[in-house]
């Protein structure tokens, strides 16, 4: 079997070329505007209903439509969806002495920023859980503290989580107070042992998870 192209169908070749160019241009999709899914598909993070798109080409097409829609009818709406972009924009605007220069810089930046071939829409520059070069097989990893503030009280929004988290960690790696840290740890412990917050401040059992027969209430936050 060979993977050589057979025949001299130029239109087919052109289609392929266009797709290749499309794939390459797809790297202009900012990381936090799309989600990569386990099966290799993508979800658009701009639209509130998170449509799932099979390929990168389809995501690009979908985004083109968005730009058309937002660009023509509701200018600025797209940007407003994304607090990070808004911040950046604002930062740029405040010191905008030479508007043309700013504009070019912005363009170059976004071009250079996404320079590598688009592999994953939500590539992290910061990976808190990656340990150093040494391989440690210890069962207890360093405790993971990277939740967005105010998440405990609110019901966590499953899809908005990662981007919000990202912006929180990247923009403000603020030191946390010990109580906060404990509370966060406790939250994660409860979540990982199968308790789900019901949105009304109470915890309910996940039906797919097993519990001890006398375990009716989730353990309280340790006091020390």
């Amino acid at each position: 079997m060979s993977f050589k192209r057979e025949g001299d169908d130029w239109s087919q070749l052109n289609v392929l070329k266009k797709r290749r160019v499309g794939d390459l241009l797809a790297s202009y999709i900012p990381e936090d505007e799309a989600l990569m899914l386990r099966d290799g598909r993508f979800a658009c993070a701009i639209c509130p209903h998170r449509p799932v798109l099979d390929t990168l080409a389809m995501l690009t097409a979908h985004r083109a439509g968005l730009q058309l829609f937002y660009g023509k009818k509701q200018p600025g709406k797209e940007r407003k969806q994304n607090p990070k972009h808004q911040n950046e924009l604002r930062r740029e605007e405040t010191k905008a002495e030479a508007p043309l220069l700013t504009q070019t810089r912005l363009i170059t930046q976004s071009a250079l920023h996404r320079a590598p071939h688009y592999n994953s829409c939500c590539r992290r520059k910061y990976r808190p859980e990656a340990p150093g070069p040494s391989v440690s097989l210890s069962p207890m990893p360093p405790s993971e503290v990277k939740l967005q503030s105010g998440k405990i009280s609110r019901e966590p929004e499953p899809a908005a989580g990662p981007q919000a988290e990202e912006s929180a960690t990247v923009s403000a790696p603020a030191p946390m107070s010990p109580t906060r840290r404990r509370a966060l740890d406790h939250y994660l412990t409860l979540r990982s042992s199968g308790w789900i917050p019901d949105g009304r401040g109470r915890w309910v059992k996940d039906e797919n998870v097993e519990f001890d027969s006398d375990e009716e209430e989730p353990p309280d936050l340790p006091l020390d």
Partner: protein
Amino acid sequence: MFLYNLTLQRATGISFAIHGNFSGTKQQEIVVSRGKILELLRPDPNTGKVHTLLTVEVFGVIRSLMAFRLTGGTKDYIVVGSDSGRIVILEYQPSKNMFEKIHQETFGKSGCRRIVPGQFLAVDPKGRAVMISAIEKQKLVYILNRDAAARLTISSPLEAHKANTLVYHVVGVDVGFENPMFACLEMDYEEADNDPTGEAAANTQQTLTFYELDLGLNHVVRKYSEPLEEHGNFLITVPGGSDGPSGVLICSENYITYKNFGDQPDIRCPIPRRRNDLDDPERGMIFVCSATHKTKSMFFFLAQTEQGDIFKITLETDEDMVTEIRLKYFDTVPVAAAMCVLKTGFLFVASEFGNHYLYQIAHLGDDDEEPEFSSAMPLEEGDTFFFQPRPLKNLVLVDELDSLSPILFCQIADLANEDTPQLYVACGRGPRSSLRVLRHGLEVSEMAVSELPGNPNAVWTVRRHIEDEFDAYIIVSFVNATLVLSIGETVEEVTDSGFLGTTPTLSCSLLGDDALVQVYPDGIRHIRADKRVNEWKTPGKKTIVKCAVNQRQVVIALTGGELVYFEMDPSGQLNEYTERKEMSADVVCMSLANVPPGEQRSRFLAVGLVDNTVRIISLDPSNGVLLRTVLDPVTGDLSDTRTRYLGSRPVKLFRVRMQGQEAVLAMSSRSWLSYSYQSRFHLTPLSYETLEFASGFASEQCPEGIVAISTNTLRILALEKLGAVFNQVAFPLQYTPRKFVIHPESNNLIIIETDHNAYTEATKAQRKQQMAEEMVEAAGEDERELAAEMAAAFLNENLPESIFGAPKAGNGQWASVIRVMNPIQGNTLDLVQLEQNEAAFSVAVCRFSNTGEDWYVLVGVAKDLILNPRSVAGGFVYTYKLVNNGEKLEFLHKTPVEEVPAAIAPFQGRVLIGVGKLLRVYDLGKKKLLRKCENKHIANYISGIQTIGHRVIVSDVQESFIWVRYKRNENQLIIFADDTYPRWVTTASLLDYDTVAGADKFGNICVVRLPPNTNDEVDEDPTGNKALWDRGLLNGASQKAEVIMNYHVGETVLSLQKTTLIPGGSESLVYTTLSGGIGILVPFTSHEDHDFFQHVEMHLRSEHPPLCGRDHLSFRSYYFPVKNVIDGDLCEQFNSMEPNKQKNVSEELDRTPPEVSKKLEDIRTRYAF
């Protein structure tokens, strides 16, 4: 990443063994194949020790091996059938100690294929033809002959193909000098294949087919074919011509049958069975291997059953017609893969699993009370004979060859606090299993230890006459006295030797043919054979500080650095040379080489001075570094210096003899032996106490020993296992060890042992009781008492299972134990027997975050597992608490699961368990383990779990690795990457955060790595649309790992570990194989090194092609193209190449041959031994 593969210990399991006069002398040798290694062994008829003469790696799979001898010849050749698609004939060249390829004929494609010959080999007993056969269809016959110069010739192949025919075994029939004939066990499946009802398949019979090579017509004909009643598994040739009745013995289930042409009726005899055997009586019994012994006057066969019982088979004849087969129980030895009876009366047993044995046949079993079974005895159909197994009676064990095969698991750690890590190896099968602790070093056997009156400072041995084989005296020097011991049957003190006893001795030696010389601080004493004594006294106040002596010369160094030289003249007189030489500084050491044969004197003296000026065996007396240099015999130049650190004390060197060659014993804080073995220079530490002084020793009991002193004891030692890298201590186990874990606090091992087709102790006792009761019940009224006695005897009988085998319980019967063992003493601290049919498959030791500091042991157990067709009733995870400082297991609870829990790994204060294809997180509950999270998307069956950070790397039994990420805040396990190749992973080891090394069941090792832009943070598809087209391409994850390295080892690898093997060495990846081999993969540190070795490998591939005809590159690329690995085993064959080829290759590399072999040695010593 570029890696270099090095074998530390070659495979030890034997697949074939043949014997013959391969070196062309009277002495018989054994050639064994160890998978991809061909080895020549020589049992020493005097000592009964088996020595390895030559080991060659052939880089191919040896599938069959045969010895043959041309008519009238005295030398045996070796025919090898391999996966190369070629037949190869080898001859052993004793002068060069190598196998020489005489012929290599290509006939088919390479690889182990169904219809490409290579699987079976048969030779005509008169050495006129050889048949090589495939499993199916193809058979080729080559005619062997001599040309005018008496060289072996081989004809073009003659075909004897038959389509749709399976072959089970082929032998050459002994027909004397008639046309060569071959007998085949065949089965024609054509009809069965074309019959859709399956009726024909049920009725298809095996046939015995004879093929005749018509030497006149130069053609092979299928002469005769006959259907067989029983399904045969192998054939034995019966001597013919003038030696016997000819024909074949067919070994089949429960019967052995004699068949031949002509009027000969079939003679059939049942295979006797053990009396009161716990085995299922309905199960058939087969012979598994045989050996033939033939002399001019008689012949017999030894055949071994699958239980290990050997029967001596003899044939009764009446005018060349066989009338009777007689079987007599001979002895029971471990089940063998091959047996050889040697002319010197030895039986070599190459065990299927575990150590191999050499027995001496003490009796032929002719005149004892053992009953003899005969085909002439009337028996009803289906009935058989019974015998009582007993300990060895006819055989005497004389030597044991250590074999680790099969290695099922290995961990490397320094549990004994010895600064060098030990290898803890779980090996063996069934009741012959053991846990072996391997340490780098030569095993020392202590022949004698005796206490001395004080602390001696030196020891020598001397012979009485130059032609004596053995030493006559041991001379021990103390601070102010000398003790002379005479060697005879015992070693005892003598005073009439002529040695001066009242002074310390500096050196003593044999001088000339029969005189002795003793050098002591005040002079030299020359003792002639007739006990006349000549003395030379030192002048003035000077004393002798150092001396060097050989057969004819004596050189002494006086205080102040003055050298005095003596030489013996032809009359036996020791003459002083008047010219003395003043050295610039004090002499530290000096040495004289032996006088070269045919010369008067040795031309060089090596003197080491305080200021390090002249050295030959250069020895820096203060830092413990050994330098080995080569002294040019003509010019006296020193070259090719190799340095090794031996220990913290100054090094002393002693010349000893090992296997007929000179060797050097170097002593520092540890003793090392430097010797040349199979054209490789070895420097191996002795696994023994620190020694202070030593000397070679030869006596009748111990022809190549060492006499050494250590504090105030005199020891006589022997080093027998030269060439072995590891010395081993073995602790027996009950069943096949599957896995073990190390408890980090107490260093105890927790081992799971599981056997299929086995009874647990409880079931065994119960069955025994039941059988005893049946025995009593079956007896009539009057025999009751006798029966009760017999039953009691049966209950008390206790044959060790390690020799007699464990009873086979049948398919789907499992027995397991969990053992806590101290790895240093090897004592079992706790033993938990699981119930019948519970099979332990996984074990982990861990802590749970919700229970604090306690350690728990989790054991994954399958219940009622049937392997084929596969079915399982479920499984359990047993939870034990480790109490009493890690010595006892306290049962906590048992958690039922749906499938086999084949992998357990601690993970973030909980455990990950692979239950069949489900990956789950469990937490410790009060009554059972609590399932907290699950992933159902693993392809087939989880065979291993590795964790690092939030990443979990799951090995699937068939689909390579799958990277899973645990999301704590969503309590989900999400697959984010996998591999693109289907690998049947057996074991894996993490190399770093992104890289994992794995091995598969076909004998490949690979390293795969996630690309740097891999994204862990993938999400579950929120649409919940689980349609068929939704699962990604071929069930895969969207991100794929890259292959960093691929390599075919050639043996199934069952353990991988990244570790350092020597203190101060660099890290390497250590693997162990099922065949008992241990190897390492080491990274190159510089580009030049990699370049150099790549070129060495390239040149060796073309200049020194593998022996069995398989192409090296294609062998290493058997399943996946070899990538980024250089084969050190091939590179090290540089040392065994012929010198001119070595020169050519090294010239291509712009180096000299010693430089190349030094580089080869360097990379080995940098990482291992």
